[in-house]
């Protein structure tokens, strides 16, 4: 069982910086990051219908510096709008891993929190932060555009205060997330992104990066090759 309070909030690493202006730069960068957010709204469910009003003329997200982007590469925030069916969850994870850190996830609608009104459904995943770290949840079925904007503002203030680093948790506790994913998708689940390699590369590996689940992954993980762009029709 996963408790909502357990969503980790870590302080920014207090590495010694020799540059006296480093703090100023950091704060400037954090400020800019909080004021310019490119979002990728993955319309996984009904919550997506309240995003157009929030984006367009009436509520106008752009005045907060938030604008929609098209591909995961360009985006900073992933908005998971509504219930996540198992088939979608795979794609959401692929999308999430392709995004460039620092990256943030917002779970919109009650369904991402606890299954919502589809608690009984065999096809939807219930708790989103079992599969990927979530920064902010916006509850409601569905949350009004005002609520969406309030949630985004909460994320903005988190980033500005240096608290918005749930994405590091994905590297630090990869074993936990991978375990939940494997439970749902089967043991041969593998994404094209080498998360462990990345964790090593950034020095973000923690004690829980490795574990029994990553061992399963390593057993069958194939060396990553280019995917041939062919589908069967």
């Amino acid at each position, binding site marked *: *069982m996963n408790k909502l309070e357990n969503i980790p909030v870590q302080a920014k690493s207090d590495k010694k910086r020799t540059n006296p202006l480093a703090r100023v730069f950091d704060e400037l960068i954090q400020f800019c990051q909080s004021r310019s957010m490119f979002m990728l709204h993955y319309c996984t469910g009904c919550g997506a219908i309240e995003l157009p009003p929030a984006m367009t003329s009436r509520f106008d997200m752009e005045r907060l510096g938030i604008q929609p982007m098209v591909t995961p590469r360009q985006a900073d925030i992933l908005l998971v709008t509504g219930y996540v069916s198992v088939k979608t969850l795979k794609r959401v994870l692929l999308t999430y891993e392709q995004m460039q850190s620092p990256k943030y996830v917002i779970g919109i609608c009650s369904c991402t929190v606890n299954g919502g009104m589809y608690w009984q459904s065999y096809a939807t995943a219930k708790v989103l932060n079992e599969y990927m770290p979530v920064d902010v949840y916006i509850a409601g079925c569905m949350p009004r555009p005002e609520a969406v904007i309030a949630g985004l503002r909460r994320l903005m203030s988190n980033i500005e205060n240096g608290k918005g680093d749930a994405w590091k948790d994905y590297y630090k506790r990869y074993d936990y997330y991978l375990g939940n994913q494997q439970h749902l998708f089967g043991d041969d689940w593998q994404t094209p992104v080498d998360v462990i390699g990345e964790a090593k590369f950034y020095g973000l590996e923690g004690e829980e990066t490795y574990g029994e689940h990553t061992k399963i992954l390593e057993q069958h993980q194939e060396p990553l090759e280019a995917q041939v762009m062919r589908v069967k029709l």
Partner: protein
Amino acid sequence: MNCDEINIWLDTLLEEINEIKVTRKSERRVRVDVDASSLPALLELLKGKASYVHLSAISCVDWPDDEEFELVYHCWSYEAKSLLSAHTRIPRNTCEEFAHYVSIYDIYKPAGFFERDIYEMYGIYFESSPFMEKFILTEWNGPPPMRKDFDAEAYVNETFNWAEYNPDWLQEITEEGGGIEIRPEDVRL
């Protein structure tokens, strides 16, 4: 020929088919019960002769007590302005795992979608349909989920976790005797 004449003509036509029971439920709804073997012939007749060109839907109902699936073909005639529901029953499991029936894709093109849907949700294999493959439930390995003997709730409890939400303020209220404590018998009506 106006609507009424078509309807009268249709009723006489239907009476000529053997083993068929026609019930006119209202002005625009006709219920036809027909044997599984003569259903394709009936549909062909309806489409070719009686202007029932629009297949609105194919519904499937599971009757596990009778060991039968009920298939309902809803056809609409733009000219007679009436909707004909052809009911038929097929045995639930014949010899192998799947129940079998014939596809009517060559009579009605929209049947392709509905038959694939029934194939996924109930596991009825429609012979000679070109679409007998996974479409919606591609990531699903369990039994056909719409069958009555698949218990979705048990599956969910087995597969998924729930997030617990028990913050301090709620605990305080609960200690004082209030809160959202749910008695076991009230859980999820």
